[in-house]
């Protein structure tokens, strides 16, 4: 037996060993416990006797390193099979029959998977006229027949029959763990990783009989904006000859939805990773409030920013799936608890009832909040899309337009689309209000500091000892523990961000970067709290200083500027770029794509991107428009998106009509004036005080030249 084979069987053994241990341990939180007693017929090579030899070991000897080993990246099905069998071995007696059927099928999956992977390996960006795009899935289930039959076979009628997600095909981003398909995070270091458990959200999907039809490609560990930094190759969307970026990092999920490979797809949104690909690929992408959907089983990029997002072809589908996904999960310490949810629900009720021209004042008599109203109408099968009540509520909305978002990088067509959308909204009766989010300019730098710091920390677990690929060299080779395994396993962008993150956390730089970024984050949150009429349920009400506000903002009364219900702005300042131009650009150039998505991520707010169809036949076909709401305002955000979607109908022709009508009916308004004024701020001009700072190389906008209000009251 060659050394490589033994190494792989070690990995198999490792996973097997762990699972066995986990079986014996009773943790109410672990899904593994729900798996019943271990099957006696464990394959012999997976046997593990804990008393004799712990399954995990580590080489540091020089002799072992000199043994020639074939390329371990050459995939052989054995580790995967080992993983599958291992899980099956621990299946319940009751579910045994189902598991057996899956055994055979999984073998077939694995075979097809291998083919799929080899194709994915082809990293050249070449469009092959494929209708579903290329490198969209990392693991794709080639199923016979329809999903309904497939799920029926496996679940035999368990689960909720009323759930919209029942029998829906769901694609899952490959950084959300599944116990039956590998979870690679599109990284070389996890290329063979088979997770022993299902993520909380995956459990939920399985419980309502959704059919998980594959794991979608992405930027490695979610780090990227164009789904180009994947170990399995760039995601290439099917339209436009595959010339334009699908967006990232949930690019695979967005393209899978767009090309109807699935009904909805799950993505993760850290700084716009769901909204940006949704905008570029022309689908709806929703990032919920932080902590609403369980992150248990989501491989973290930056824990304090990560959210599970939903990609679908319409806002209605998003809402339909969102309502069954928003559940408390005790295994996720950042998941909002049941009591918090109840408290927030109470606060929202009060806020609605109190507000003079609030969203739900009209429905007070009926004893129903807007959330409930919307859900009744959108979720019932016979809901009329143009329901009068919702429309009436919608017309009462105050829409904020952040003047700081009118940046120089904003492409003309995007700006035009933004203006048009606002015009249409105003024409419908909404109040359009210019607002100021003064800390926007610092948000991008703060985001890339915090996210990189957390990423560097989170990724330190990948050393090849317990899972993932391991270098043929010794663990200690090169003088630094694991440097070879990690060096070979991670891609360039990931390494870049680990370096950046390690730097900003280092004792010499922490105060100037990490701590400051945390303060900026707090300021960004305060910006939002100030402009939203609904108070942030997670924070005590604050007094805001008028002197902080931009002079151009008109005051509503002596109390300050008017507050808004929602914010409408573009998802990205540009259209989907060509792959060609990305090749020329520096890695940091793509950071600018996140400029409008990052602030709401930092503040943990719900945001949705809906696609507006362009009239131009040339270039990308969609522009993403983003709607941001206050924390916990998820449903209203989706409902508003639904209304705007209906108004704009994805249709250029109708747009034009509305626009003309709007121009006739609406004169010059303040927001329109502000829109016309040239660049308000240039995001990219801020550099650090220290010219030799390595941050200059990596980040365009760090640290903060303009003194941040570094006062005592800003805590992090």
């Amino acid at each position: 037996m060659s050394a490589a084979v033994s190494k792989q069987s070690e990995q198999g053994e490792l996973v097997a060993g762990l699972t066995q241990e986990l079986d014996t341990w009773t943790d109410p939180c672990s899904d593994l416990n729900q798996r019943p007693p271990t099957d006696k017929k464990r394959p012999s090579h997976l046997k593990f006797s804990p008393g004799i030899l712990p399954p995990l070991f580590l080489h540091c000897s020089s002799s072992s390193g000199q043994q020639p080993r074939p390329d371990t990246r050459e995939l052989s099905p054995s580790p995967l099979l080992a993983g599958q069998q291992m899980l099956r071995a621990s299946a319940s007696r009751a579910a045994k029959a189902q598991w057996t059927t899956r055994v055979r099928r999984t073998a077939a999956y694995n075979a097809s998977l291998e083919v799929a992977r080899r194709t994915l390996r082809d990293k050249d960006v070449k469009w092959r006229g494929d209708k579903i795009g290329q490198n969209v899935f990392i693991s794709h289930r080639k199923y016979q027949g329809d999903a309904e039959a497939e799920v029926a076979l496996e679940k035999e009628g368990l689960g909720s029959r009323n759930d919209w997600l029942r029998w829906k095909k769901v694609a899952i981003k490959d950084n959300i763990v599944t116990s039956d398909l590998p979870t690679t995070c599109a990284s070389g270091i996890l290329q063979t990783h088979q997770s022993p458990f299902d993520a909380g959200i995956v459990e939920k999907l399985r419980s309502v009989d959704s059919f998980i039809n594959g794991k979608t490609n992405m930027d490695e560990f979610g780090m990227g904006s164009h789904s180009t930094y994947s170990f399995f190759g760039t995601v290439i969307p099917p339209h436009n000859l595959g010339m334009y970026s699908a967006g990232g990092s949930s690019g695979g999920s967005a393209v899978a939805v767009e090309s109807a490979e699935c009904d909805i797809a799950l993505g993760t949104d850290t700084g716009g990773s769901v909204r940006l690909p949704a905008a570029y690929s022309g689908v709806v992408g929703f990032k919920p409030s932080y902590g609403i959907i369980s992150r248990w089983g989501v491989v973290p990029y930056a824990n304090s920013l990560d959210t599970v997002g939903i990609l679908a072809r319409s806002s209605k589908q998003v809402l339909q799936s969102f309502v069954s996904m928003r559940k408390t999960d005790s295994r996720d310490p950042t998941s909002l608890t049941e009591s918090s949810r109840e408290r927030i629900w109470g606060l929202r009720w009060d806020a609605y009832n109190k507000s003079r021209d609030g969203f739900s004042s009209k429905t007070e008599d009926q004893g129903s909040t807007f959330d409930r109203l919307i859900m009744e109408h959108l979720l019932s099968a016979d809901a009329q899309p143009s329901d009068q009540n919702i429309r009436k509520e919608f017309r009462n909305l105050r829409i904020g337009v952040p003047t700081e978002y009118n940046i120089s990088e904003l492409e003309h067509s995007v700006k035009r689309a933004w203006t048009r959308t606002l015009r249409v909204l105003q024409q419908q009766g909404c109040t359009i209000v210019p607002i100021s989010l003064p800390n926007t300019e610092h948000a991008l730098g703060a985001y890339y500091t915090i996210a990189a710091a957390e990423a560097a920390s989170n990724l330190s677990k990948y050393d090849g000892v317990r899972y993932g690929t391991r270098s043929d060299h010794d663990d200690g080779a090169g003088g630094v523990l694991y440097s070879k395994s990690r060096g070979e396993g991670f891609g360039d962008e990931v390494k870049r961000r680990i370096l950046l993150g390690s730097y900003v956390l280092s004792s010499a730089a922490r105060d100037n970067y990490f701590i400051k970024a945390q303060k900026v984050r707090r300021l960004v949150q305060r910006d939002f709290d100030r402009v939203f009429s609904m108070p942030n349920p997670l924070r005590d009400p604050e007094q805001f200083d008028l002197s902080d506000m931009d002079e151009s903002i008109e005051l509503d009364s002596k109390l300050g500027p008017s507050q808004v219900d929602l914010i409408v702005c573009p998802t990205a300042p540009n259209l989907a770029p060509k792959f060609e131009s990305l090749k020329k650009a520096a890695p940091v150039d793509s950071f600018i794509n996140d400029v409008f998505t990052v602030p709401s991520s930092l503040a943990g707010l719900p945001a949705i991107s809906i696609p507006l169809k362009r009239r131009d036949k040339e270039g990308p076909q969609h522009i993403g428009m983003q709607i941001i709401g206050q924390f916990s305002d998820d449903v209203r955000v989706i409902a508003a998106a639904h209304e705007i979607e209906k108004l704009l109908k994805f249709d250029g022709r109708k747009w034009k009509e509305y626009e003309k009508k709007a121009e006739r009916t609406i004169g010059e308004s303040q927001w329109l004036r502000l829109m016309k004024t040239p660049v308000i701020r240039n995001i990219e001009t801020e550099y650090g005080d220290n010219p030799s700072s390595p941050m200059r190389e990596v980040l365009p906008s760090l640290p903060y030249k303009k003194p941040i209000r570094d006062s005592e009251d800003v805590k992090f």
Partner: protein
Amino acid sequence: MARIAPRVLRSYLLGGQVPARGCLCRRTATPARSAVLRRYHATQAIQPTAESAVPSAAIPFRKQLKDEAKQRKAEGGEKISKVDNQTLDDWELTVGIEIHAQLNTPRKLFSSAASTINDAPNTHVALFDVAMPGSQPTFQKETLIPALRAALALNCNIQKTSRFDRKHYFHWDQPSGYQITQFYEPFAKDGHITLYAHDGIAKEDGEQITIGIKQVQMEQDTAKTISQPGDIHLLDFNRVGLPLIEIITLPQIHHPSTAAALVRKVQIILESVDACVLGMQSGGLRADVNVSVRNREKDSLTTKAMENIGEGGHENSQVNGVDQEEESSPTETEGEEDRFGSYAGITGLGQRTEIKNLSSFKAVEDAIIAERDRQIRVLEFGGVIAGETRGWTIGSTETRRLRGKEGEVDYRYMPDPDLGPVIIGQDLINHLELNLGILPDAEISTLVEEYGLTPKDALSLVSLNEGGRHEYFRDVVDQLLLLPLDKDQDVAGKLCITWVLHEMGGLTHEDADEENPLRITRDGDCIIKAPELAVLIYYVQKNKITGKSAKKILAELFACGLRGEVRKTEELIDEAGLWFIPLSAAEYEELARSVLDMTVVEQILAGKGGKINFLVGQMMRKDGNGKVDPQEAMEALRKVIEEFRK
């Protein structure tokens, strides 16, 4: 009443020795042996110094060594003992200690995997423990209870809000690549611990000394590495993620034996409040020590100079402040501290080095002595102490360099983004404070002050039978006070302790079980019932029976108890006929005559009056029932001997 585990207190009694199963378990030497060992090690620590030192009259340390050598010679070649090596004339030693103790909890800190010690490797491992991608920590609230008890016992202020931070470094025993600890906001701060002479502090520290505790923090343990030949390391993840507390003292210790006493006392306190895990194969309690020295004269001047610089030159370098801003940026503080030779508000210290992973009290003391001497040697040669991490092997004479400042890992502390703050309610603190029980010091001082015991007897008493002996003692005293003896509690205590500790300790019987012959339970139950013993003591005190008879009755009570019979003390005295009835004058005379030895009589008559005591002894020995009163016996003897004079 809360009772202290005997093994805890035994450590008091045996002067620092801890049972083999104790936290610092490797300490197995008996007290007598350990004294020998100490001397041996202390000498070893000194010798290389003597060899390597260059002859120069200007080196005071060398001079001191010579003096000491002379003194040793004068004392008959006896080697320098550790007790004499606690303080040096010209150099002041400063030590701060970090103690890691494993908390006594059923679950790990962030997963509900069970915390076990001896189970098969890798059988108690949750997904989070091996850092499985996608797994998240769940703080186990129950781990707070022993941690809070420990912090309260160490007189700390419990912080209402505390947080967890990640400390990053790569090592195979750390699956996630970082340890979750409390860096920015620990859960307990500003405590103190008082050490008394009986704790074994250096005699230079006087009767008692109070050492400040900077903070107590919670953190995760690492996995256990089992090294194999061929540079292979097997890993057992059962231990990974177990909750530890780290106790950080202020650098207020100036003598090596006080440092050892502190570690020992911390262990005793942790055990007495049931916070710490015992019976560990290794690593139940580990200490890191920070050692620095400064020249008593020279450095005090420098200190002033530095303080001036600190005030004048750097507005922000208020190194000794503990204000909020400094708290939030400890690294900066650390840097500042190193530059100004200060730590946690104590300025003017020399450059410190850290000795990691000391696992016994002896190692703490020996390592500090060795490191102190090494630093002095370096400084006297005009060298500079480098801020570095050093190691110590048991039985060695020198600390060894592990890594220098340049090899130091930047831990890149970051608040853990998955874990929210821990908010501790005042009601919980109050509840735990009320139920903390009596700490060993309080219990011993009660015995000494209210029961008239010597500290040594008090220590012995509380350390026996898991506290049962103490309970029994209290019962006996209570019973004795009920009898019409008319004595105060402290007198009664003194009377009882002899019987409870010494006489009962001497009882043997072939049927008795070796471990606990008296079958004393934790609650103070014994086969010799407390009231019976009290009655016995009472009769002795009232001269109703002689002490010798009483010992016989005690043995009889013991034998009955072993057989399971319940007998009254009075009954037994009746049966044995041991009631003290004074002998008549005739009986005395008869007895005196029976022991007369003519040679002795002649000696006495010749003037050696003292010899009469020998005959009194003979008389007492002859009387099997202990009825002979020495005074009466002597009178009788005198009378008889006088007859011979004629």
